[in-house]
């Protein structure tokens, strides 16, 4: 297996240093309330410019996995999830802390994250080469539909409203077309001199994720620290380790559901954690204990959200369709290194791909060790005041954006896009589909143009783009994802209305 051939590179001096620092840094970032994994990875992309492709990807990947696990710290200690993926952890993690078992809950969180993470990465290692071989059959028409599928799925599944999600994805595609006309080589949609270079990935990623989050942080900063923080008890790690590893059913349910949900483009860790939690509760002999400080709740949700990380990279590395918004940002990091997902990545840059996957496997072990060590210090991390976090992220976003091309126009684009996204978020739009549109837009257009040339010289546009087994399957997936999401949205709306009516009835 190629993994073993490239595994020694993971332990080369520079890469192992990145792994250790990335794990510690990721756990601290994840533990800080208000800093999401997606934003953390987006902010780090400029730093990868100074590294080779392998080291850069390792840094982004390890920070992704560590921030998701670290997010459980604030969920457990202050009842505020560090990331949406940790919402299910909060349900039992915080009651455990209230009952004087905060350290125990943190131990379970990192041990389960490690176990789930290893299973997720194994899924990545086993499934990616299979999908890559399948992707060899893809021509321009199939690649075009794959790009559209990516935007459709994230737009419909990853947003609260299907229509708004699809609109956000389409808007992302459209603004990615600003800059250069690929046919005539002239400028296109350049309304200002700052847009002459187009809207590149880094300013868009940082702006869309960092600026709205800074604005959200300051909304509540003046109120001071929120949530109730609890004291941490002394507990030997070995006791937690033995108990945790004996909870085979919870770990299996969490890791299996997390891995499956990660494979579905756009689903994300929040869904993985909540579904796994719900299923474990149904299979439990003591379902009434869930929500009151049941360790199995923490174990299931944390193994689920971290196993989702590895498997969410399967469709990204093989087809270029990310499994979660953070994987979409990672895809941006891959593209700006000049690497394209799919068969070419595994044929021409096999060292990068396999070393990256090997590093993710090793990072899970470091995550357990680092997390258990840092657990006792985590109460200091969550005390960082929001106003300092907001100020630091704002300045870091400016420097990170500028450092990529030494371009002031990029900084203007970053701040402007981010501000617009903040207002759009208040009106129900999400940044995930916009980012994916910006990343996949040029891929969709280039393949559309190539396909157009081939079609006009051969069978015609309709036959070329709308026939063939893979095309029909991809188009069907697009339609199914949209239809399914519309049905689901109507159901959720009906349930919300019912809840509101019940609440109003209760008040009356």
């Amino acid at each position: 297996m190629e993994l073993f051939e490239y595994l020694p590179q993971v332990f080369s001096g520079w890469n192992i240093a990145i792994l250790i620092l990335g794990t510690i840094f990721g756990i601290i970032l994840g533990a800080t309330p208000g800093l999401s994994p997606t934003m953390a990875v987006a902010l780090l992309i400029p730093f990868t410019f100074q590294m080779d492709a392998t080291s850069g990807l390792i840094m982004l990947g390890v920070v992704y996995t560590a921030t998701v696990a670290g997010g459980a710290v604030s969920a457990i200690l202050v009842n505020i999830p560090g990331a949406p993926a940790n919402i299910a952890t909060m349900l039992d993690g915080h009651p455990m802390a209230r009952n004087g078992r905060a350290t125990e809950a943190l131990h379970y969180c990192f041990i389960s994250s490690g176990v789930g993470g290893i299973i997720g990465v194994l899924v990545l290692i086993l499934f990616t080469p299979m999908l890559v071989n399948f992707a060899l059959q893809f021509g321009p028409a199939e690649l075009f539909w794959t790009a559209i599928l990516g935007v459709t799925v994230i737009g419909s599944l990853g947003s609260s409203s299907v229509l708004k999600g699809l609109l956000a994805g389409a808007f992302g595609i459209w603004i990615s077309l600003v800059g250069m006309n690929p046919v005539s080589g002239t400028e296109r949609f350049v309304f200002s001199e700052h847009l002459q270079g187009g809207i590149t990935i880094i300013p868009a990623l940082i702006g869309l994720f960092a600026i709205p989050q800074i604005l959200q942080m300051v909304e509540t900063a003046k109120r001071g620290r929120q949530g109730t923080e609890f004291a941490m008890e002394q507990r030997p790690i070995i006791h937690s380790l033995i108990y945790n590893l004996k909870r085979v059913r919870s770990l299996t349910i969490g890791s299996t559901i997390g891995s499956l949900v990660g494979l579905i483009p756009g689903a994300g860790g929040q869904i993985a954690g909540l579904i796994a939690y719900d299923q474990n509760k149904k299979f439990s002999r003591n379902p009434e204990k869930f929500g009151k400080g049941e360790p199995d709740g923490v174990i299931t949700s944390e193994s689920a959200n971290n196993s989702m990380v590895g498997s969410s990279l399967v469709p990204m590395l093989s087809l270029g369709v990310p499994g979660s918004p953070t994987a979409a940002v990672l895809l941006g990091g891959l593209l700006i290194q000049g690497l394209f997902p799919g068969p070419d990545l595994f044929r021409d840059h096999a060292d990068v791909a396999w070393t990256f996957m090997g590093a993710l496997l090793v990072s899970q072990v470091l995550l357990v060790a680092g997390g258990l060590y840092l657990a006792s210090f985590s109460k200091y991390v969550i005390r960082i005041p929001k106003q300092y976090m907001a100020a630091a992220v704002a300045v870091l976003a400016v420097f990170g954006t500028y450092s990529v091309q030494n371009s002031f126009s990029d900084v203007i684009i970053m701040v402007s896009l981010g501000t617009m996204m903040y207002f759009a978020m208040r009106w129900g739009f999400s940044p995930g589909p916009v980012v994916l549109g910006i990343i996949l837009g040029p891929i969709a257009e280039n393949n559309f143009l190539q396909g157009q040339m081939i079609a006009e010289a051969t069978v015609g546009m309709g036959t070329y783009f709308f026939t063939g087994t893979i095309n029909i399957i991809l188009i069907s997936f697009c339609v199914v994802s949209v239809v399914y999401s519309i049905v689901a949205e109507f159901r959720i709306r009906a349930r919300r209305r019912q809840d509101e009516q019940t609440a109003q009835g209760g008040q009356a």
Partner: protein
Amino acid sequence: MNSSHLRHRITAVATVVVCGLVVWASFAPDTPTGYEFPQVVSLSMLGIAVFLMLLAFKPGARVTGGEEEPVPWGAVWPLLAILFGFLLVSETLGYFVSSAIAFFLIASIYSPGRFSWARVIRVGAITLAFMAALYLIFVVVLNVQVPEGVLF
């Protein structure tokens, strides 16, 4: 019609207007070469936006809480002013000085509690420490040439 309905309808109309502008921009060029794909995308956007508006204006359409939220202007306008102020002055004053001012202003304005000189000194010290770390990372380690203005 309550405020949630009104906000929902305003959002839908604003979305149609923005998508209309995108369609106009996509069809405005005299030579259509290279604009086919943006035209397809913009028309798809307009179609979805119109559908969204029809749903919002459908008689008896109900809006659930939390679909659109009001902007907390009182909390966010100082930060927006600082960010856009930074864009205006950073090339003149220099990146490090304007970033330090932005950091200091954000941390001071959004600190909970009343104004005190002790807090000003504490925020000032943290600002200097943060900027020193940033200088070390970007200028010394990453060798980024940030614009220097009249100050630094």
